[in-house]
């Protein structure tokens, strides 16, 4: 990475509020389900029976898709897309079988935008059921060549071609799994 031009050497890192999985909200979740306290640490057996017992269907929602992409690493920095607020839960929308993900490059001239977009796309192609159509766009007004980036990211042929390039695939894999 050292040889590549760094587009934003010092981006803002946000302290993500959702990172704190608070004990309190766990209490609330449990309290809604049951009158009885199972003790601070849920026993594994009770957890098991929980997943088995109810037949309620849990649809794929915004939060779940956000969970899939929040841990992707920025190609330039040792930070996740969530920490840099490149992606956020409200920027994801689901309509029947279409998922739209909007992301915000840290600077308007960011040359990494297409790579970030591609990483998000690859992650979602692999992780979402095939019935979904993916629409990945930069936040309107956040990038100087917004139109070009959007076009590139949503062009099936170009995405497929990009994924034929081993070097590019390697970079995408690095972003998806973090660096060693």
């Amino acid at each position, binding site marked *: 990475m050292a040889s590549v031009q760094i587009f934003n050497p010092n981006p803002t890192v946000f302290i993500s509020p959702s990172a704190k999985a608070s004990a309190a909200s766990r209490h609330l979740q449990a*309290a809604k389900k049951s009158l009885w306290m199972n003790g601070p640490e849920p026993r594994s057996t009770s957890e098991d029976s929980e997943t*088995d017992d109810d037949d309620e269907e849990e649809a794929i929602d915004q939060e*779940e898709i956000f969970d899939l992409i929040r841990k992707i690493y920025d190609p330039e920095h040792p930070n996740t897309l969530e920490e840099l607020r490149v992606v956020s839960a409200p920027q994801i929308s689901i309509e029947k079988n279409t998922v739209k993900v909007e992301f915000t490059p840290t600077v308007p001239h960011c040359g990494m935008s297409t790579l970030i977009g591609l990483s998000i796309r690859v992650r979602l192609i692999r992780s979402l059921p095939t019935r979904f159509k993916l629409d990945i766009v930069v936040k309107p007004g956040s990038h100087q060549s917004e139109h070009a980036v959007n076009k590139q990211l949503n062009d099936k042929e170009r995405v497929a071609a990009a994924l034929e390039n081993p070097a590019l695939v390697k970079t995408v894999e690095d972003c998806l799994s973090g660096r060693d």
Partner: protein
Amino acid sequence: MSAERLVRTWITSQRAEEVTEIVSGMLSRLSSPSLIINTNRNFQRLNRSPRCRQSPWRVSDRRRRLSANKRSRFTCVELLSAVLSRCPADKLNRQAAKVLTTFYCSKMEDTETVVPALKGLASLTKLPSSTSEDVPNILDAIFEHVKMKGLVQSVRFQVFTIIDTLLARHRDAFKTINDSFLGRYIALVEGEKDPRNLLLAFAIARVLLIEFDITNFFESLFNITFCYFPITFRPPPNDPYGISTDDLRQALRGCLNATPSFGPLAIPVFLEKLAAGSPTTKRDTLQSMSLCFPVYGSALARSHARQLWNALKLEIFQPTDPITEEFALKTTQSLIKTIYAEQSPEFGNGDIEGLARDACEECISILREPEKSQAKPAIKVLCAFMSTTPSVARYTVAQTVPYLVKLYTKTDNIASRPSILLLLSELIAASRDSMKNLHISDASEKPLGPFKDEILGILTSALKTPPSRDPALACLLGFVSTGGLLTDEELAFIVHGVDDILSEESEEGEEASAPALKLLVTISLTASHHVKEQTLPLLFGMLSDNAPPRDAAIERAKAWRILSALNTLCRRPDLFETLVISLNTKLDLLCMPSDTPAPEELEPRAAYAHSILTTLHQTILAKVDDGHVDVAKYIESLVPRLFNLFIYSALDPDKNMIASDPRLITEAGNIIGAITQTVSAQRQQKFVQTLFNAYLDGNYKDIADGPQKIPLSTVFAPLNPAAPKKQRNLVILMASAVLPLHKEIRIPVPDLSGFFKSLVSWGLADAGTDLQQESAWKMLCAIVNKRSADASTFIKFMLEDFGPQSIANRSCPPEKRNPAIRVWIWVSKALLVCNHTDGSQFTELLFQVFDDEAIKWSAATSFGEIVRTDMVLTKHNYASIKMLYAQRFLRQILPRMITGAHDSTDPESQISHLIALTSLISSVPKALYIHDMPKLIPLLVRGLDLPDHNIRYQVINTFLSVAEGDSADIVSEHAPTLIQTMLRNSTAANMSSARVRISALKYLGVLPTIVRYDILHPHKATVIRQLAVSLDDPKRTVRKEAVAARTTWFKSSG
């Protein structure tokens, strides 16, 4: 044969076989104690001077005559060296040593004998009779005649060994020939490449660098050491010499930092390697630099400070990886320490010059944008400065803290306040950690001392704004954990501020509660009175006296939050006492309401009381884990009080007593058990007496004590067949108290076997619920295990009467036989764990009913339960647990089960065997069966086709546990089958149990990490396609596993 004759024969025969024969013959004589003296005498005569006829000189005379034969010259010296290496040290006198030295030195001239001569010298130089007088001769011979490049590693090793030994023993002799030795030695070692030799060469070089006058040679010495830096050697797999890269690195570093004269030459090398190297090289360079700076001295460090800092800065601000970054920070510390080492702590109270100042200013200017990513490495550098020298630390704090405080108070910075506090908290923590080694008790001497009022000021305001709360709490935690920094009033003030957060109703308040509690716990370590006086009354006040109604989830969550806060806070003895008193009062109020609660209130009320009991239990468990001894004393107070409450409630004719709910009784039992566990054997004996008095004779006066007055007229007899259900439930309490009894405790009944028999018949005939039954069986199991010697009549009864009549008897109805198997399991378990001789007869009976449709299922699955570790027979409960009992059991049973599961003559029994096998395997640690895995895998795969979900779940988990550890690839040849089966079990359409789907997907995700890719490749496309189906699973947790598994498969490639 005498030694003389052996040598003579060898000289004349000149045959290789004979040589070895002679040597071994001679050696065996030497090593035999009776002959050793004699042989030695001969040997010495052989070695002694030309006066003796049988001497090495004679040998060499012969050699001259046989000089045409190179091999003979070689073996001749070889023989002598071999003998010498086995010669006891005290048997060689100075004269002999001298002669031998001269002899060997002369042999170096001859290229044929140089190898054995070196070998001989290596042994000779170690002997006490070899003195410094010999050193010049040996060295001359070596330097003159030994051509290192032409010799193999082992011979070069001998050369290094000789020099190393001589250097260790006769260092002064070397020093007299300083220059001539150094020059020739440097020429000798140049070009050495073998790691074994280098280890020695580095050790020698370190001695030379430190102890010798190297003025004329430091450049050459620099060349012969730094040419190896950085070490790139990687040991071959299964290296028999066991030299690691790290050994070499350490040895080389010993040379690099041996002398300050290397400094000016070394720094450019370091900088070059740091800039160009791989992460490993970078780390090696950084570590070496840290070690070298102090030796190279502060003057040099100062003159290269800028240059070095620029290089280090790059590693910190654009780190290749976190470890390298960490190393770079350590190196920076070493650099700063070296530069400022000479300054006394009093010096420069305010000001400091040079690198520390420049770097500080540089970092602080980056902190101007505290929310940006570069602020993080900047604060790391400043934190690293805290652990350098006191003056630098003081300077850093004096520069950074006021700057951050000013930044915080600027009005246009409100959005970045949390980031500022986060940075500040890191600095505070670093300041605290730097103090650990220094023991400064006076607050004003601590670097943060002068600034604490200022910081506390902004923290108090930050606690009130939710976004800044967490970082503010982190700052406070740093403050509080710095010993002696804060005064008592300041602590009280902080506790007050934190209490405000806990009492807040909003969601933000709830989010901050975990760090707030951590802070309070830390404060309570040193000043628990603040928590006791301020926080606890507040929390108890917030805990309502009445149960939240059924639909008030928020209220209930709040109560649970307060209870879990109390659980975290009240572990210290004094705080725990307060907790017990307050919660007992709440419990009494809930269980004994003054007005009759409405029916719909009953369950919420019981649940609330249950949560209070659970909290007490959890706190006690945490205390036991922390080794608190005050738990035991609650057998005098809390235990009688609980018994009183529950006996009162059980005897009360009112049906709606809260405390007669079995869930509450179970939780109370847990508390009683946990306390009894910590009590001494003597006290247990007394306690068990009162317990049995109460349960068998109805005399509960001694065990129950509390505010509720139990009416005297009622009869307490829970084990009586006629007892009402409410009373029978109290057996749960009895069982919990009996489980943790010590082995030596006598059960106060006249006839133990009689008691057991009545317990069994009570459990089977009278106990109304599973809970009552299981309690009875657990109690039975615990006592039988510890006192099996007293129970022989009972064991005999079980085997001869109970088993055949209640289990094996096929005319008995299954609804009676199945519960009987439960007793059977518990008794078998008790006997198995203590390796009782009758244990195997119990399992035998289970095998007998494998073909019995009515109960074969219970019988087969019971094997897992018998061997599984549980909460009853544990070390904490003082159970009699024999070593390797499970191994023995498995060795006995497993072959039979494998055969049975293969035997298709009786399909019924075959399936039973298979079920028993899966149940058994999934209940024991994998170490017990891993060696049988090749035989087991086909059977386990068949187990995955059994209709029962629980069995499938267990089998997959067994595969998962086998996948961890060394022999994970054992499943390779079954991989295609496993993939198919797991895929079948992973879709909602084929498998209704989410638990099984999750496990199957987990296993699919593990496969690519344990099986070679070439085996998996043909299946990759199928698996990825099939997993897409699970991505659309109705359950979120299943989808998550599917995503993880699919990602691993995407990534796996050849």
